[in-house]
């Protein structure tokens, strides 16, 4: 398409996307703005006279904050790293052996279509001490009673939360990497081989730098999602400490209305973290394009 054509289509895009963007900006941006006003204690009754960071201060100085953010970071970082590691291996294997295999692509798409909530409830039904697995193993005498089944739900290490996130995020990261690897083809690796690069050296000095930006961008998106996701840790996490989104929800829905601004403040901290992650992921993608890596 020529330059003037692009300008015209950009003009059309504004008209086409305008209504949808307006709604998103109003509902999402408006919600954030209202939340910010409440967290800062700016209300219609008090006007702009009494802006305060007290609620943020309260959150940061709360003895539960450190535990909550540590748990949230543990869940999001661990699941992201695990999903990324598995995705690298999977993407390389698929690119090498099954790049155009429809069945493999179909299987990989399944986790993308299943909502987090559904898989979290499934895990609860399957893996909880009173779940199907524990009763199955008990019935066949493999464990003395259902309560002897290892604690995989509401446990200290958030095993089930991690498994749900890893299961869900692997296809997303794998597809991001596959698009780069398919564009890349085998040639650069072949060049590396004839330039005396061993298999490991080729992975380290050719493949990783090529997929690095997309991997980083995908990881940041997954991190942002898991950092702000509520339903999985709410259903599968233990009751104390709770992750930041669960803590925000509990504060917001507390019968004590005075806890609500703190809930919103936590929500805004989460939103800020997500915004930074998404921005960084876009920076990485632009960086990759500048380097000539097609994403």
């Amino acid at each position: 398409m020529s330059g003037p054509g692009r300008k015209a289509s950009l003009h059309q895009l504004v008209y086409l996307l305008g209504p949808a963007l307006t709604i998103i900006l109003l509902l999402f941006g408006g919600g954030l703005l209202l939340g910010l006003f409440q967290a800062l204690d700016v209300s219609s009754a008090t006007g702009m006279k009494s802006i305060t960071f007290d609620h943020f201060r309260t959150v940061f100085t709360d003895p539960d904050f450190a535990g909550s953010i540590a748990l949230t970071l543990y869940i999001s970082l661990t699941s992201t790293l695990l999903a990324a590691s598995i995705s690298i291996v999977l993407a390389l294997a698929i690119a090498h052996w099954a790049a155009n295999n429809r069945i493999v692509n179909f299987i990989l798409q399944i986790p993308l279509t299943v909502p987090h909530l559904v898989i979290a409830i499934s895990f609860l039904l399957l893996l909880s001490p009173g779940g199907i697995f524990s009763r199955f193993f008990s019935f066949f005498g493999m464990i003395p009673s259902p309560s002897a089944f290892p604690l995989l739900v509401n446990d200290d290490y958030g095993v089930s939360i991690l498994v749900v996130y890893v299961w869900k995020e692997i296809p997303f990261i794998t597809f991001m990497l596959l698009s780069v690897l398919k564009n890349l083809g085998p040639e650069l690796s072949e060049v590396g081989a004839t330039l005396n690069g061993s298999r490991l050296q080729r992975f380290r000095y050719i493949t990783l730098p090529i997929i690095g930006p997309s991997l980083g961008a995908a990881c940041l998106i997954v991190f942002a999602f898991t950092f702000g996701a509520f339903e999985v840790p709410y259903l599968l996490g233990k009751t104390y400490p709770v992750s930041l989104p669960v803590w925000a929800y509990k504060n917001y829905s507390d019968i004590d209305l005075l806890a609500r601004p703190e809930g919103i403040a936590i929500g805004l901290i989460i939103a800020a973290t997500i915004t930074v992650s998404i921005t960084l992921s876009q920076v990485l993608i632009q960086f990759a394009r500048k380097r000539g890596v097609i994403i």
Partner: protein
Amino acid sequence: MRQLELRNLTIRYGETTIIRDLSLSIKNGEIVSLLGPSGAGKTTILKTIAGLLQPAGGQIFINSISVNHLPAEKRDAVLIFQKPLLFPFLNVAQNIGFGLKMQKMARREAERKIDRILEITELAGLNSRKIHQLSGGQQQRVALARGLVLEPAILLLDEPLSNLDAELRLQMRELIYTVQRQTETTMLFVTHDQSEALAISDRVCLLLDGGLRQTGSPEELFYSPADPEVARFFGCDNIFSSSDSFTQQAGNFHTDQKLFTIRPEDVEIFSDQKEPTSPRHAFEGTVTGMIFEGRLTRLTVSVTEKEHVTVLCRRPAFHIGQTVWLRMPKDRIHFFP
């Protein structure tokens, strides 16, 4: 010393045999062209020598050592691809030094080698230039430098000029030739362009129908083709039999050898029967085709209803339908063995 030797190399893709029983040896410091039409299997041969493909049969020797069992990174052969295939995330010097880094060469020694090769390949001053800031010709020179810097036993070049425009191709061709003479690197140069092969090589190997049809000096292949197909590959359509009626008319073909050829540019053409120095051997024809090809014009002269002679001449003063006289100098005629 033989840097590269192929013994009865056979390459298959599934059930299809691409190359059958190919044998070839290249001496130290020699530049040999592997010439053949597109799809003849030239790239496949290079990839097999480099270790990127496994042969179905035969043996490959580099530095007199059998390398069939060695992976690509352990063979002392570097392949320069048709496309430059530079690493987009590295600058010029880093690209050139990539192989040295893989060999874990000391930084100072590597820098010295990179600087030297940058000079040789006329890339000096571009060390820290990003790849996307280079022209097509510069990118191909970086790819060449990246291979040369490793000083391999054999440098395999897979049509490295095919993506360049005519002028750049000529410059790059001269550069490869100069660099080869300077560094005495043994090179196997693959191309489908006969002029490239003839200009650059010590020897040319013509690959047709999955095998080497003829190997020899550029002059041998051009002027003394082994068979009519080789002659045709080098642009010579003048394949005649000494029993053809017009050759009888021209006389002096008293030989047992039946088939012969003469290059179109060696056929003499006259508008007057008296013009030939030896009019006894001239024969008559009619100009039936004329194609202007720039430096030369290709004329088709029909000497009988079914027999045609192709003539190449500069600025011809002939026209279609004109009666002309042709002469084939005896010393320019090549009888097929």
